[in-house]
């Protein structure tokens, strides 16, 4: 990730293109500019020299190209902003796009609930981090909040709960409810531990995807979508967000769904090699899940058979 000023940033963008890299995310805030990029390893040294010469810094961000939901039991002041936002912040520092989400009725040991819509929304992300509280019995009693989630779940809680291993990819204890920012050295270390565990979980997921690769890499598809005029004109920050197995594009499905489906990728219609659906959050985003090569081959042979 490049972190620096806007001055001479066009040279940086040109260099990324020259070395055959891709820009995963660009964020400009006043004169500050951050670029999350993916470049060949052998060009890293040259890229660092270039970034230093224009007054910026470069660091590795292992979570680049992912979108992660950090889920708290509610949006009430008991659970927000800390530690939910602290966890989200450290993930952003490591390159991820994060979304903080509070459930409508996630509080209470006996009364907590999650709706199907909430589950569907969480399933749109690459992973979900659940931040629960300080009592072991309460954390264990809330497993129904994540047992039906299909994306990897990382549970962050106070005490170490028992019997939840089959519902979570990772459990990190020692956080719990907090009323102030996690700023002590031990707390910062804990946040780094959370980020490292998320990285491990997502690496395993990437490895699984490599066994049956996607028909087209999300970053390649992003380059194609960037040429689509309504996305270029979108004023929303990060109008295209990469997922491990697809993308989120922030334009309405009912207006652009057909045009997106009809785009051509490696001689195929995008709608034939990806599942395109409206986001469950609202109608202003489209979720694209790219099919794997074997899925596309299956669909082809089924088509020929018919």
């Amino acid at each position, binding site marked *: 990730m490049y972190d620096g000023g806007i001055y001479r940033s066009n040279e940086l963008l040109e260099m990324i293109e020259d070395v055959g890299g891709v820009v995963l995310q660009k964020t400009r805030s006043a004169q500050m500019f951050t670029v999350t990029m993916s470049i060949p390893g052998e060009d890293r040294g040259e890229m660092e020299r270039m970034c230093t010469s224009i007054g910026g810094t470069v660091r590795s961000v292992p979570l680049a190209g992912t979108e992660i939901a950090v889920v708290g039991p509610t949006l009430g002041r*008991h659970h927000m902003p800390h530690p939910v936002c602290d966890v989200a912040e450290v993930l952003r520092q490591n390159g991820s796009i994060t979304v903080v989400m509070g459930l409508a009725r996630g509080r209470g040991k006996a009364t907590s609930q999650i709706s199907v819509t909430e589950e569907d929304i969480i399933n749109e992300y690459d992973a979900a981090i659940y931040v629960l*509280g300080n*009592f*072991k019995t309460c954390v264990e009693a809330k497993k129904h909040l994540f047992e039906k989630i299909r994306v990897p779940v990382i549970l962050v809680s106070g*005490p170490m709960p028992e019997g939840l291993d089959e519902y979570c990819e990772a459990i990190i204890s020692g956080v719990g409810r907090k*009323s102030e920012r996690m700023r002590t050295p031990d707390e910062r270390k804990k946040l780094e531990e959370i980020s490292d565990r998320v990285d491990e979980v997502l690496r395993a997921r990437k490895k699984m995807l490599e066994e049956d690769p996607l028909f087209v890499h999300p970053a390649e598809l992003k380059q194609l979508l960037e040429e689509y005029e309504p996305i270029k004109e979108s004023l929303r920050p990060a109008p295209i967000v990469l997922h491990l197995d697809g993308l989120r594009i922030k334009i309405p499905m009912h207006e652009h769904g057909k045009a997106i489906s009809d785009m051509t990728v490696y001689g195929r219609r995008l709608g034939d090699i990806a599942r395109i659906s409206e986001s469950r959050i609202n109608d202003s985003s489209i979720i694209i899940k790219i099919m794997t090569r074997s899925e596309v081959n299956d669909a082809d042979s089924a088509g020929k058979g018919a």
Partner: protein
Amino acid sequence: MLVEVTGTDAYGNEAYKKLFEDILSESGKATSLEKVRMLLNPGTPLFIFSALMRNVPESKTIADAVSIRTEGNEVHISISDENYAPHILSALWKMYGRDRVDQQTRFDIKIENGDEDAIAKVEIASGEDAKQEIIGSLWRVLPEGIKARHNISEGRLITIAATEEIMTEELKEKALRFHNETKGDADV
């Protein structure tokens, strides 16, 4: 402030003690409490918090937060406790209207044709407000889902019992016993 925690979850006991201290210090009320006892039983669930204040909170008048003098037909007020400045200004505007209240600096106010004695007696913070703020902080410490609550207030001692189930007479009696244990020999 002495904080005693008893409960069935060792991790939760420590965490809630820290949480309580943080929230109280954030609200600026930590110094007004002498002793706090907490019973944390997440299994039932039943949570009882008992807070003994140093003094019974009394109401404050403008005279407690300013020095005041009359010169000719003008009353001059110099605010000594800035915490109450917004309340003082708002009370004066209500009494005399904005035209007659002239805030010359951050702390100095001049009032045309004001009545010094009447101004001095105006209440700017009631004792009940201070108590409510402490109760608010205790509610904030309690887990969010524990909604059925029962308050006992006696002089400078406040006890809050909370459960997720029905607040039965048995639980209320338990809260009263806890309240009396906290009171001990103290004169409340």
